[in-house]
């Protein structure tokens, strides 16, 4: 069974008096444990699509199910609860909480979103800190670490709740080339370890090559899918 199933999704925005179609009848399926990239130029609809999959927005038409749930039908509170349980997020600007340490940033979803016992919290956070190579930086604040380190912390934060899906919108856009590769490889390693589906958007052609399934978007339409093989698979419909 597909983890994500999108059928004829359209998304329309109202900009002043003009209606802008960000997505025009997009359909695809993504299987669990896939490592997927949505590529396309700016304005092609990548971010819009990730927002819809991440339950941050609702499609204007079409159906979108994530882990068997019709995400368009979720109310505000249910949507937040669903995100907290099923989806991890990695942001372009890292979006770590500046008042929390590296350790506390990773721990945050377990404390505030899920109710996990202190012992389990400590085990999970410590293990992830080691996995992303940030164990020695655990007590530093975000302003005391580099961009690449921040994104590694963000990867750990996204994974700490053991979500089925991690969404990363342009996760390497603010990183230099080597660091970007390192982060993508880390994400891939985590996918292998936790069997979590990773979906990221990018317009960096070199990074795109690291994805196993690549969906290309242009003007809000899915223009093609390239499956390079790997653990999971996707399918444009």
């Amino acid at each position, binding site marked *: 069974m597909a983890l994500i199933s999108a059928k004829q999704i359209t998304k329309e925005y109202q900009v002043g008096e003009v209606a802008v179609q960000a997505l025009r009848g997009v359909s695809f399926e993504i299987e669990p444990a896939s490592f997927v990239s949505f590529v396309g130029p700016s304005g092609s609809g990548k971010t819009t699509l990730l927002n819809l999959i*991440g339950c941050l927005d609702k499609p204007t038409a079409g159906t979108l199910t994530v882990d068997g749930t019709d995400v368009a039908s979720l109310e505000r509170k249910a949507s*937040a609860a669903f995100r907290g*349980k099923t989806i991890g*997020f990695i942001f372009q600007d890292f*979006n770590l909480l500046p008042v*929390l340490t590296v350790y506390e940033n990773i721990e*945050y979803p377990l404390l*505030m979103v899920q109710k996990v016992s202190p012992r389990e919290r400590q085990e999970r956070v410590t293990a992830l800190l080691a996995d992303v190579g940030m164990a020695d930086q655990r007590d530093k604040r975000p302003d005391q670490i580099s961009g690449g380190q921040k994104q590694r912390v963000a990867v750990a934060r*996204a994974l700490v709740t053991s979500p089925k899906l991690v969404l990363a919108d342009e996760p390497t856009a603010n990183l230099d080339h080597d660091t970007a590769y390192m982060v993508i490889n880390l994400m891939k390693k985590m996918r292998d370890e936790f069997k979590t589906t990773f979906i990221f958007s990018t317009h960096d052609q070199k990074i795109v090559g690291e994805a196993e399934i690549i969906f290309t978007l242009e003007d809000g339409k899915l223009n093609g899918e390239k499956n390079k093989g790997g653990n999971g698979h996707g399918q444009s419909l």
Partner: protein
Amino acid sequence: MGNLFKIAIRNLLRYKRRTLLTASLITVGVVFVLAFVSVAGTFKNMMIGQVTDSMIGHLQVHRKGFVASIETLPLNMNLKGGAIGKLEKILDAQPEIESYSPRIKLGGMFSNFTETSSIRITAIDPAREFKTVPLLPGRVMEGSKELKPGSILIPELLARGMKVKPGDAVVVVATNAEGSVNGKQFVVSGVMESATGPGGRDGYIHLDDARELLRLEDKQVSEYAIRLKDFGELAAFSKKIDGLLAKELNPQGKPIFEVHNWEKLSPFFNIARMIDLMTFFIKLMLIAIVLISIMNVMIMAVYERIREIGTIAAIGTLPGKILSMFVIEGFCMGVVGALIGDLVGIGIVWILNLFKISYNFGMQKGLVLQAGVSAADILMISATVIIVSVIASLQPAFKASRMEPIQALRHT
């Protein structure tokens, strides 16, 4: 909850200067209110003590209609035989009463054999009177504090105006209820300091002398002054005794007695009410200061952290938790402001007392202010500040909790 507090406190410390400024504003407000409440409250309580404990008593019972015509001190409105018996029986049965004192009020002429002036006199049983209004002996400035039959305590103004001093012989002439005039010679035993309020410029004689002067054949009383064991019970006791005495009717079926507590007898009550009103407005100003400063700082906090709000909302933080996070920030600022304000306020009250500030009240000169603030006042002011802080945080916190994560994340 502990983690919400941890995040809230760290966010407050993130903007140290702003937090310090807001907390300082609240602190200053609390200090001003505490200082005002302590000074005004102490002044009020001291004056109430003076009025009740040196003249009026906590409450008084008269024959119905006496107070309405008190200016003329009508002897025909005195309580007599049967009524006195009934009243004293009722008063004796009340456990709330510490003591009560019967008085006869009369007007007369005061002569030092060369000059004559009018005088208002309260005739008392000294032992019972001094127990009911214990500060009365303290008003004797010169001479003896004792009041034996044949002696008179005269008010300071009369003594000064007529050049009379303790030990001098004087004559008091009075008209009784039947209209016959009688005089009696007294020895001035003491000169009394004047006090503000009804009875504050009265002379005092013994009840036995009043009966002789007025040629009263039976026992008569103009008023009963009553002192309660607990002044705080005054309102409840007034209501109770009023209810009990209302049942006592004359042959015409009308009430025999009337009860007035000090508030209805002394003009100082209006000053006390004005002090209460001023205190209320000062507290209202504190509420406004807290409300505006906390709301302002929380609106700024929400605006500055829109992307953070978007992030925590995106990763699944429920709206209620986001709301709590910001409300706790307001709560913490209120607590800090109130606590520091309480400490500084108590310090200022202590310093005020070191200076021994003196003031005059009416005819009373050189009263020393003993400022004090009760634990109840401190708790009430602190609770008000904290509750208002939480209320002021609610609107910005609610706005934060209702933010759409997608829009918040786009905010630059």
